[in-house]
């Protein structure tokens, strides 16, 4: 099958949408209360090194995805094991997002619709997107990202009359440990989840720098998150923000412009759904590509649909109720460590050694040609 490629901007938009995904509605707020925004900035600082490691892996083996890279650097058997682990992570993440999505809709509006139906309608869209390919996903993100950003900015502006700056006081009222704990939560969900992008890395063209992509996209996402956190805190205050399952939804709900523009919380749902579609698609495509690689199939698009249904089935089994969904976030930050940190760092170190070895073996070749040799 022909290789799908995306431009740097399309990839960046997809990346931001991915980060935005379920986290914008689920929880970029932490237990740090009014200091959540400090947690966010801290989380970004923590995330940048690991994200740069992901970028470095992509740079070492350009135009290859994670599954090809692990086979190169670890060997066939080890590569298969890592591949299986990453497939599980991507599929599980996919199921988590779908479940979060259906929980949200069930809690907010469609209280009597069975969750399975909501999940199925979402997965149909996601499967369609995945089958259309990575290129379509990139273009779609380019169109949708401005919509999402505008909604955040508009709700911010419309809420201005109701904000209470004292909600942010006292600054650093929590201990550094609490703030750091909150930061780690944000690090694990959503920043380090971008490890899934390594599975699609093959679609980025060689001339585009992954460093630029990852850092710029992370910064843009951080700015949008900051706006969201600030809006929620300023409108609701830390106590309400932490008490609510969906603080963004509640914050926008209280906006009232001249008794005409009221109850526009649907707009945050819009954001959640649009970004959720991208996040689910990325995970689904990543899992499909992994399975394609594992069993030597020719085109990942053939198994997208069954895999999507599998994700829905997994999603229905994940939790009993919404409380469990939020409790799982605590476990998630530990559960995700191997996938988000250990495996990538391990691959990175091995890849650095391997590339250097190959370069030494090839004598005085330029680093670029050594990489292509390794890739070829």
């Amino acid at each position, binding site marked *: 099958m022909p290789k799908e490629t995306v431009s740097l*901007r399309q990839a960046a938009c997809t990346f931001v949408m991915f980060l935005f995904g379920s986290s914008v509605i689920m929880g970029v707020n932490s237990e740090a209360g009014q200091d959540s925004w400090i947690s966010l900035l801290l989380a970004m600082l923590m995330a940048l090194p690991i994200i740069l490691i992901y970028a470095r892996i992509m740079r070492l083996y350009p135009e290859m995805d994670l599954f090809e890279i692990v086979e190169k650097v670890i060997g066939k058997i080890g590569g298969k094991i890592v591949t299986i682990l990453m497939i599980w992570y991507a599929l599980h993440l996919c199921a988590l997002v779908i479940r979060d999505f259906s929980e949200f809709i069930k809690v907010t509006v469609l209280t009597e619709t069975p969750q399975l139906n909501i999940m199925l309608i979402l997965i149909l869209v996601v499967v369609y997107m995945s089958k*259309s390919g990575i290129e379509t996903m990139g*273009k779609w993100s380019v169109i949708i990202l401005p919509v999402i950003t505008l909604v955040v900015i508009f709700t911010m502006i419309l809420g201005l009359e109701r904000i209470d700056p004292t909600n942010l006081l006292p600054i650093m009222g929590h201990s550094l440990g609490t703030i750091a704990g909150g930061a780690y939560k944000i690090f694990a969900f959503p920043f380090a989840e971008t490890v899934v992008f390594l599975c699609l890395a093959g679609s980025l063209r060689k001339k585009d720098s992954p460093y630029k992509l990852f850092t710029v996209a992370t910064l843009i996402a951080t700015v949008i998150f900051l706006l969201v956190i600030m809006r929620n805190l300023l409108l609701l205050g830390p106590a309400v923000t932490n008490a609510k399952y969906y603080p963004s939804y509640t914050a926008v709900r209280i906006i009232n412009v001249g008794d005409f523009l*009221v109850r526009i919380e649907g707009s945050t749902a819009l954001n959640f759904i649009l970004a959720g579609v991208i996040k689910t698609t990325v995970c689904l495509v990543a899992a499909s590509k992994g399975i394609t690689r594992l069993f030597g199939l020719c085109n990942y698009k053939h198994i997208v649909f069954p895999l999507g249904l599998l994700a829905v089935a997994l999603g229905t089994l994940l939790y009993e109720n919404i409380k469990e969904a939020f409790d799982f976030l605590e476990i998630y930050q530990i559960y995700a460590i191997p996938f988000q940190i250990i495996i990538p760092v391990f691959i990175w170190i091995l890849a650095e050694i391997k590339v250097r070895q190959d370069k030494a073996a090839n004598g005085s070749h330029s680093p670029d040609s050594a990489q292509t040799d390794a890739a070829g």
Partner: protein
Amino acid sequence: MGRFFKKKQNLSSNKNESTNETTDKPVLFDSLDKNVETISELFKDVDILRLKYINCCDRRLTCCIIFCDGMVDQSVINESIINPLMLSSVKDTDSVYTLMTQVIQIGGMKETDNVDEIVEAIAYGDTVLFAEGLGQAIILDTKGFQSRPINEPENEKNLSGSREGFTESLLVNLSMIRRRVLTSELKMKSYTIGRRTKTKAYICYMDGLVNKQILSELYRRLDKIDIDAVLDTNYITELIHDSPWSPFRTIGYTERPDAVVGKLLEGRIAIFLDGSPAVLTLPYLFIENFQSSEDYYLNFYYTSFSRMVRIIGFFLSVIVPSVYIAAVAFHHEMMPLQLFINITSERQTVPLPASLEALIMLFVFDILRETGVRMPSNIGQTLSIVGALVIGQAAVEAKLVAAPMIIVVALTGITGLLTPKLNSPIVYIRLMLLLLATAFGFYGIILGVSCVLIHIINLRSFGVPQLTISGKLRFQDIKDTVIRAPWWMMILRPGFAEDRVRSKEGGKS
């Protein structure tokens, strides 16, 4: 006779065989009688075929002219063929060149010995001249059939700009293009489509502007067409469509020569088909659904506004009924209180659920629209009375339908007529969104719109994506989309054109 039988069999056998057996084609003889017999055998039972024998050149040479009655211009035949043939006294009569150069007074003529070509020429209104002892025939251009006069196209009316519209006559259509572009860059290649109709088509493009890859892709797809007949350009549209199942157009059509020339000058290719006043243009970008040739003839502030009206109209047309359903059924809280009270009090006495009501009313609107198209124009009054009074006002007063629903349906219907080129997708998208809104409220609408967007992004027209999204916001990319920039800012042609520079930077003088 055995030979003729074989020939006829050959003609009626399918295309592939006849191209393979080129050796056994009917040929011309030296004998006039045999030739005439060949032709009249082929045109057996075609009673409008006319034969006329003429003794010419002081009776040294016997000729026969063959033509179809009604297809030819009789006065041309009389004055420029029969008259000179009868009166001429040319001595040297052993070659067709003498006749062609010294006797017959017609501009378009051509000698041939190909029987297929002769048959086609006779069928197309030309006159064929056979002469005793000459192994060739002369095809004389005497086409004189009647065609519709040039009128303004009914469904693409403009306030300003050219009033010409294409007719069913291929050559008249080509002439309307030709005289607008007076350089040799404008190429017109003929092509024949249809196994039985042998319909003439012309492929026009500007050499140097057109993308050669798109052109060869077009020829590749046209060559693959194997169909009996093409009666309208839509046959070709469906046969060379990029995604045959999509309701969206990936090939444009217009009946306006000025629009076609505009498209040609943007590096597009036009396909003319004999017998069809609609001309195809390709590649076709999604935004062309909202463009009109008039946009370029009026002030750019005004036309930018009307462009936006059309785009918003498209959105409204697909989304208004479903938003109404979602708001009434699921999201009461999003309406301002007074609006909610008004709608609810209206709906209280209505027996049907809102979504069923919407489905029925939209269907009724489509019935009215279809009737309006099909019925004779002099009973239009009846339709408007039935539509407006009975189905609108009376239904509301009888409390069968809620008044807001009538407004929704009217808005949907009117906005749907703004973009006639999107007619077929609008109907299906609207229905899909309506059903999704009934089941899932706004979430259904959002997911439905996402799907439509994915579909549009996937669409390609001859390999060119219908929606160009680079992610960079450059003025030259949006200058002719949601707005229509002034002409002095239109520096570049669309991305697929071979030569992108339309004018110098700041083309203003």
